[in-house]
């Protein structure tokens, strides 16, 4: 993959994206909104890119990554993760549209809608705005509950009314629905196939440029897996994901493919929006506290003495408070604080986002202690190593040794901790939302989705689709993250590498 990382497209693409973004804002009169977590997500993307560039030049970092790249399950899950990340990133670019011309005031200033939208919202506009009255099952054409309907001849009857949007294009849903879904699915699969073929073509052409060899040779290289990268598994997973995307593209605007919830909102849309929440909690929670955990951990292990005592005291104290209770206490306090200071936030989205941000910080505070302890132990070991002792003998200052010698040698532990924590944090979000101390109730998240659906289990017939949606989306993400983190751990943990 080395040839890919040097390609000019990696410089041109971000510039192009920023230009398109700025141009779009200017032309539509919309106002960009930078939520707190958005900014952190951008910083995160930037630092990951920098990390990737710097490790591409270092053999000791490139080697474990090569091992990850050869790991079949790891790469398959990476494909799934990347698609989640793509959706999450699209959902992290926010803006407020300008109000319609007739609602503008006379002065020069443009007024904006109070609703904060993201690029993802625009892409999936049909399912965002198509509200039904209340529950409806996946692919249903009729509402879940009976209503009194007035027919054209004036008679009234208690029956299941037609949905306003789901299957609304059909004349007689009972007869036509099956055929319509089949046709649309087929088109969707074809669209998926086209997208997949395009991506595959780009990969093969990339190889062609790199090796300066013929197309058929590289086609063979990719599909026989002789390059060492498990392309068959990667492209197979990608094909499945493309099929799913194609199906969503053709079916979602015409049907509620995962049903609607109590207020009639499309569950598929909610699940898509929840992706960003899950990813933000999974990544930012670890990363916000990461600098502290690394610094304190290696300081405690290297300086020993009173520094060690203080830092150990700090993390034992934090650790001894049961995590959920500390989170609950802190979130309750923030809730009270935000309720008393409503003027701090311009829009609802900003308020919900601030709460998400605080939740990440608190989750970070409760979870950094484990990493800190690990790093302290490792730094203790490293402080007795020859090259560290030699630097000490030469009179190199303590902090310089920490930065030059200790820090690079504990980074694999940090990396493993980040990927291992991710799935746990995504799962924790659901539990916290259930307890009532998770993300804002107005924010889309899998926890809120489960929480809303949980009470409907007692209904007859049972409302199962919200749970199913949350289950599928969460399970796919957490499973992919778990499998990928295993691959990363196998590659980076020196104890496992020996085997």
């Amino acid at each position, binding site marked *: 993959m080395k040839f890919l990382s040097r390609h000019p497209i990696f410089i041109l693409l971000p510039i192009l994206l920023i230009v398109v973004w700025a141009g779009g804002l200017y032309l539509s009169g919309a106002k960009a909104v930078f939520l707190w977590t958005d900014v952190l997500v951008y910083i995160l993307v930037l630092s990951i890119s920098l990390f990737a560039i710097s490790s591409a030049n270092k053999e000791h970092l490139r080697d474990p990554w090569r091992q990850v790249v050869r790991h079949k399950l790891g790469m398959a899950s990476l494909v799934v993760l990347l698609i989640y990340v793509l959706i999450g990133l699209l959902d992290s670019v926010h803006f407020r549209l300008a109000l319609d011309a007739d609602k503008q005031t006379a002065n020069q200033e443009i007024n904006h809608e109070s609703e904060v939208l993201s690029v993802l919202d625009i892409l999936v506009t049909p399912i965002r705005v198509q509200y039904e009255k209340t529950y409806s099952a996946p692919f249903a054409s009729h509402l879940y509950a009976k209503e009194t309907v007035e027919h054209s001849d004036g008679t009234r009857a208690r029956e299941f009314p037609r949905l306003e949007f789901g299957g609304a294009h059909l004349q007689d849903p009972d007869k036509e629905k099956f055929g319509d879904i089949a046709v649309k699915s087929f088109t969707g699969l074809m669209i998926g196939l086209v997208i997949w073929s395009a991506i595959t073509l780009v990969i093969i052409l990339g190889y062609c440029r790199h090796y300066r060899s013929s197309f058929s040779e590289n086609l063979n290289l990719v599909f026989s897996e002789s390059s060492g990268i498990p392309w068959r598994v990667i492209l197979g997973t990608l094909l499945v994901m493309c099929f799913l995307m194609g199906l969503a593209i053709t079916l979602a605007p015409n049907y509620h493919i995962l049903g609607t919830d109590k207020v009639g909102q499309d569950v598929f849309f909610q699940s898509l929006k929840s992706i960003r929440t899950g990813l933000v909690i999974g990544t930012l929670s670890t990363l916000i506290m990461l600098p502290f955990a690394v610094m304190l951990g290696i300081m405690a292990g290297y300086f020993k003495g009173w520094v060690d005592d203080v830092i150990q*005291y700090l993390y034992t*104290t934090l650790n*001894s408070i049961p995590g959920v*209770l500390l989170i*609950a*206490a802190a979130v309750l306090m923030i809730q009270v604080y935000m309720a008393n200071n409503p003027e701090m936030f311009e829009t609802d989205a900003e308020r919900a986002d601030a709460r998400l941000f605080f939740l990440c910080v608190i989750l970070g505070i409760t979870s950094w202690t484990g990493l800190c302890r690990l790093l302290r132990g490792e730094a203790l070991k490293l402080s007795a190593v020859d090259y560290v002792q030699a630097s000490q003998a030469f009179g190199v200052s303590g902090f310089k040794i920490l930065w030059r010698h200790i820090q690079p040698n504990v980074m694999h532990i940090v990396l493993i901790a980040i990927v291992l924590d991710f799935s746990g944090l995504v799962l924790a979000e659901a539990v916290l939302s259930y307890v009532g101390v998770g993300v804002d109730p107005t924010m889309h998240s899998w926890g809120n989705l*489960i929480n809303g659906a949980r009470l409907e289990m007692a209904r007859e017939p049972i409302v199962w689709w919200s749970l199913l949606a949350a289950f599928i989306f969460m*399970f796919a993400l957490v499973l992919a993250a*778990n499998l990928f983190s295993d691959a990363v751990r196998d590659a980076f943990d020196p104890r496992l590498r020996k085997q």
Partner: protein
Amino acid sequence: MLSYIVRRSLYAIPILIGVNLITFILFFVVNTPDDMARMHLGMKRVTPEAVEQWKQERGYDRPLVINSAADGSDKFTETIFFQNTVKLFAFDFGRSDAGRDISFDITERMWPSLMLAVPSLIIGLLVNITFALLVAFFRASYIDVWGVILCVVLMSISGMFYIIGGQFLLGKVLHLVPISGFDMQNAFKFLVIPVIIGVISGIGSGTRWYRTIFLEEMEKDYVRTARAKGLPETLVLFKHILKNAMIPILTGVVVVLPLLFMGSLITESFFGIPGLGSYTIDAINSQDFAIVRSMVFLGSVLYIVGLILTDISYTMVDPRIRLQ
């Protein structure tokens, strides 16, 4: 040994002071009692008199740290810090914001929590160790590879789905046992599903964890010796590896033993078991800060007890370790 335990217990005091300082700052400094009163009484149209009365009923009308109006030692005791934070050290939890005696509630609700947590722990331990031994016995074969993948799959399912699915399957479809509720007399009937679900949801991570312990043990010299002298693999596994692997397994269990009192938040509230877990959730939902504060303190005490017990259990199961 005894002096070690005493010393360790003394170490616990600064930690508990730290915990109490954190809770004090969180509950009384970040938000003043006035904020809390307004939150409880509804945000809008609250008269200052109502706020004062709410604070007075709960003793939050005292000054935070130093009461300059009082004389002598009352200067320090007639304060929120002393009344609501320092008194926790004597396990005097006081009254909840709703007016109930917290200590009484805790002793009452401890038993259902334990009745759920102890069987879950023991059965879970047995099941996980059995599976882990099985997987470790067939290590580096397809059974091992697929066993580990299955574990990862099981780990990737949120605990809430285990509970919802289990309730639905066992209670609603099969009508075997009541879905939720509790009754001290025939507790068994109500505890069957929670325990089963608790065990199943832990299989994934538990089996994987014990498998790594067994595999780590398998690489040691004594195992090679045992194999070299011709012992059959089953005997090596059960007689040598299992025995030695019990050290990390047991000490891992001892840490969580005291915390069993706290109960399980999610399981208890889903099944309507009146334990300490659902007590905590109810307190969080009704924003009863006095209970949350007490539970934070209780949880920290139990955690520290767990740490001390771990150290002691190390010496009991592993004679190579001596405490100084």
